[in-house]
């Protein structure tokens, strides 16, 4: 049993060896700190229960047409109704439709554009969530014509209503219409998307056949008691042909795709987080190997002390306990410093982490993280203390006590174990470094991807027109044209345009279509394209090249013949080498309107920078006037124009018009690559630590070995060995260890990095550059780490060296 006295002596021993204690503590603190920080993130994102009732029994129901795309998409109301009626495996359904609304109410009285969700009244019962104040929607408040009710986020309630109960029952104006506030959701509440401030009834109209056949709903369902996800998938798959037979235009080729809610919320981050967790696991092992090595070297020096203790009557168990006390103390001290580092790290995650992992904000150094840190500390202490403690079991006391003042040697077995630990450290370092290198190269490739437009000097802001003076469809085009003219006249502005959905941010609205004059595909094979609406100067302002034909013109008015501009991908896919200009497209999402292709523009990345380019159809704004447009303004000389001036230019036309989400385009691009940057940066920090630990490991072993071989080196020097020969002898030892570790590590990295393939962009898991650079860098560091003790060996005076005997 460990006694307080053992711990006290262990503390004393560490205090008297400050160099050893500092290096061991630093290695452990880095290892445990990194592991605790990543644990807290993994815990928050992947392990902690989602705050819904029996969240593991909730699924999201998407729709999928495998013949057209492997991407899942929104569900159609018609299908939702059919599932509700026919499914026996899903007990409750709820639907969500994302939108933005303009809200006036509470403090200030200024209109504010907010993220909103229109939801079915069944959503909160399905999730098992209740408002913290007021009440949720009743079913009779989720009906067309009787749905002007609102629930507020806790954040909005505090900000605009000061957290007052009096807000319940108050009237606010949403997109110009009066809505009654019914309740307030719990702090931090979100379902699939974060940042929502207002929930409104979805109020699906069963008589609206057109809306019922559009796919725009996110559907959440609860598994019936005793039913598993697979069983529900089988049943929903079996329903698909029945739905297709009943409504072939909508459902031919489509089927539902069920995804557990947890996977939906955190699935995209899972692989990256598990990669980071594996990397910190390796780091922790490296730290343990490092400290075990230090303890083994120290144990070799302490053999005599141990032998004396045995001679004084200590049992082997007691000796082992004392050595374990020292390693446990080191582990706990390392854990304590590590916890401080972890807290700092978690703070950095929350501040610089990607916004699309909302649960990241919940990561904290809570009781679970502290417990993890404590367990890791004790486990590490036991792990790295085991080797030196086991070493006492076969200690030859006679030898240890006979050696007079010579110190002692751990013998061949001890040396072999130390070498093996360093080889292990180098091998683990190779794996972490290769992983870090691959992610960084992948990120750099991603960052260098051409988004299809010039982001420098672009400022964007949203112009929500629903509910205001400019809400009327007829007014919107004229207002937007005035806005563009006013802004275009500002000094420092080189170009201005507007679009309903910015590139790289989201896939936005899509449509199926057909090319006139080409064989019409069956309904389930009808091609899909993204659909955008843009003003004439949008392409020039964005720097999207016009490759053929013309841009939109003022003549493309509401009543004029319908025209469209297509992107390069659509033109090449459907016209090949033929000229698309003058071709005619039937756009299903615009009621089957047939429009003439008047131009071809370059491709832009619709969502993120990864993935292939999508066929895209651009409509002139007057012919498809969306209620909210995003204005893009390009400044002169690469500088973004000041937002105040732009706001003035808009308010000169309409002082009440809101402007929302003003952001430089470069910030939007940075947000898009924030997650890969976060992953790469973190793994590279870990790779740096691994680099350092491997170098310290090699240095420690070689340095110790040189000090043990002082006599041998002295004899060699006395016999005529030149300093260069001694240098080469010591360097060769370091190179051998590093070589073995690198070879082992490269093999392991080849096997493990295949698991990272999903995180990489245009970089192969066996990327030759990374696999060449890492061994070179580690080899160089190994030689440098060996060079310092080798210099010491070279500088030895033979007579002094021999006198050490």
């Amino acid at each position, binding site marked *: 049993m460990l006694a307080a006295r053992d711990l006290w*002596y262990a503390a004393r021993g560490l205090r008297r060896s400050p160099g050893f204690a500092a290096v061991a503590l630093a290695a452990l603190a880095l290892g445990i700190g990194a592991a605790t920080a990543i644990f807290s993130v993994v815990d928050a994102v992947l392990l902690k229960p989602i705050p819904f009732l029996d969240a593991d029994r909730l699924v999201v129901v998407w729709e999928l047409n495998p013949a057209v795309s492997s991407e899942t998409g929104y569900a159609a109301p018609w299908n939702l109704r059919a599932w509700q009626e026919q499914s026996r495996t899903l007990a409750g359904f709820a639907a969500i439709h994302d939108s933005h609304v303009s809200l006036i109410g509470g403090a200030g009285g200024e209109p504010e554009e907010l993220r909103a969700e229109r939801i079915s009244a069944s959503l909160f019962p399905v999730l098992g969530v209740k408002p913290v104040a007021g009440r949720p929607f009743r079913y009779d408040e989720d009906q067309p014509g009787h749905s002007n009710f609102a629930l507020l986020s806790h954040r909005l309630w505090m900000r605009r209503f000061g957290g007052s109960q009096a807000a319940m029952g108050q009237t606010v104006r949403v997109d110009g219409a009066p809505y009654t506030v019914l309740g307030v959701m719990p702090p931090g509440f979100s379902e699939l998307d974060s940042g929502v401030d207002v929930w409104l009834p979805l109020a699906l109209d069963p008589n609206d056949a057109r809306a019922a056949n559009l796919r725009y709903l996110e559907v959440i369902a609860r598994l019936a008691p005793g039913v598993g996800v697979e069983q529900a998938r089988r049943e929903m798959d079996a329903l698909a042909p029945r739905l297709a037979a009943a409504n072939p235009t909508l459902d031919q080729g489509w089927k539902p795709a069920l995804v557990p809610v947890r996977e939906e919320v955190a699935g995209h981050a899972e692989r990256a987080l598990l990669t980071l967790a594996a990397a910190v696991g390796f780091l922790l092992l490296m730290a343990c190997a490092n400290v075990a090595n230090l303890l083994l070297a120290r144990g070799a020096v302490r053999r005599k002390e141990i032998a004396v*203790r045995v001679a004084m009557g200590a049992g082997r168990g007691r000796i082992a306990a004392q050595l374990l006390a020292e390693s446990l103390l080191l582990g706990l001290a390392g854990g304590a410093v590590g916890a401080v580092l972890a807290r700092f790290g978690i703070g950095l995650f929350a501040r610089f982490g990607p916004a699309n992992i909302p649960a990241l904000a919940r990561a904290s150094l809570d009781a679970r993280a502290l417990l993890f840190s404590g367990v890791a500390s004790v486990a590490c202490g036991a792990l790295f203390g085991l080797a030196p403690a086991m070493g006492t079991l076969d200690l030859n006391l006679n030898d240890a006590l006979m050696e007079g003042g010579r110190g002692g040697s751990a013998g061949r077995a001890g040396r072999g174990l130390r070498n093996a630990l360093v080889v292990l450290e180098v091998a683990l370092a190779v794996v972490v470094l290769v992983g870090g290198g691959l992610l960084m190269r992948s990120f750099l490739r991603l960052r260098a991807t051409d988004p299809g437009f010039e982001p420098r000097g672009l400022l964007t802001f949203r112009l929500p027109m629903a509910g205001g003076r400019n809400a009327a469809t007829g007014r919107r085009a004229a207002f937007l044209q005035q806005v563009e003219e006013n802004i275009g006249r500002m000094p420092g502005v080189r170009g201005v345009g507007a679009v309903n959905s910015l590139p790289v941010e989201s896939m936005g609205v899509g449509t199926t279509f057909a090319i006139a004059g080409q064989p019409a595909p069956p309904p389930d094979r009808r091609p899909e394209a993204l659909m955008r609406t843009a003003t004439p100067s949008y392409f020039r302002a964005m720097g999207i090249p016009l490759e053929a034909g013309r841009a939109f013109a003022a003549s493309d008015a509401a009543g004029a013949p319908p025209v469209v501009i297509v992107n390069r991908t659509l033109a090449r896919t459907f016209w090949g080498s033929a000229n698309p200009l003058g071709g005619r497209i039937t756009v299903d999402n615009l009621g089957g309107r047939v429009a003439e292709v008047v131009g071809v523009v370059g491709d832009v990345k619709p969502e993120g920078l990864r993935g292939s380019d999508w066929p895209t159809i651009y409509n002139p704004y007057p012919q498809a006037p969306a209620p909210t447009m995003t204005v893009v303004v390009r400044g002169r000389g690469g500088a973004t124009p000041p937002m105040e001036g732009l706001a003035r230019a808009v308010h000169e036309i309409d002082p009440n018009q809101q402007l929302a989400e003003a952001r430089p385009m470069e910030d939007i691009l940075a947000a898009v690559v924030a997650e890969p940057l976060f992953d790469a940066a973190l793994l590279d920090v870990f790779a740096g630590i691994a680099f350092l630990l491997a170098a310290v490991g090699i240095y420690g072993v070689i340095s110790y070995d040189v000090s043990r071989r002082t006599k041998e080196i002295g004899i060699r020097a006395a016999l005529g060995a030149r300093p260069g020969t001694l240098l080469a002898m010591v360097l060769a030892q370091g190179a051998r260890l590093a070589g073995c570790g690198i070879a082992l590590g490269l093999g392991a990295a080849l096997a493990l990095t295949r698991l990272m393939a999903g995180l990489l962009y245009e970089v192969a898991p066996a990327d030759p550059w990374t696999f060449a650079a890492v061994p070179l860098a580690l080899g160089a560091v190994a030689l440098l780490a060996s060079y310092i003790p080798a210099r010491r060996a070279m500088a030895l005076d033979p007579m002094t060296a021999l006198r050490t005997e």
Partner: protein
Amino acid sequence: MITLRNVEKFYEGGYGRTYVLRRINLEIQQGDFVTIMGPSGAGKSTLLSILGMLDGAWTGEFEFLGNEVHRMKPRERVELNKKYIGFVFQSYHLIDNLTVYENLDIPLSYRNFKSSERAALVCDALDRFHIVGKRDLFPNQLSGGQQQLVAVARAVIASPKLILADEPTGNLHSSQGKEIMELFKKLNDEGVTIVQVTHSEANAAYGNRVVQLADGWIVQ
């Protein structure tokens, strides 16, 4: 007190066995002061280690205070060591990171004495060996003689029946060595059995019997 019959110690090597001790037959009575002498490599220290239960890899028969050591498990041998034996080494072998007080406390801590008893015994030993003023010093703050004095105090603090001393004055100058040997003599007079290994005829003269070893054999 001690009976060795045909005790042998050897190492297996590539060319067969290398003997360190051959057919050792030895009788030591309680109260003896035995000196083991012989040239380097004769096996003196090995014999001392076997007597002190520090070395378990030997053949033959060994009785200690009526216990058949050769039939005992290592754990039981440790118990015998704890109960009856104290060690003094040529290089003192004090534990560097413990104070004089703590070094004296070490054997007691392994023998399950209550802390109040241990404190009393350590204070007695400090008093008896006139090292009260050194109690909080570390070994490297003491002279060689002082260190060996502490080592002897540590050896006797748990009131052993047998003290095994391996070249106890080997690292001391003559006056310090004499002081230590006088101490041994005094302890022997008090009834403690002492077995010492030494090259010094003068030290051997303190004992009542000399055992000569050569090449692992008892030659006299």
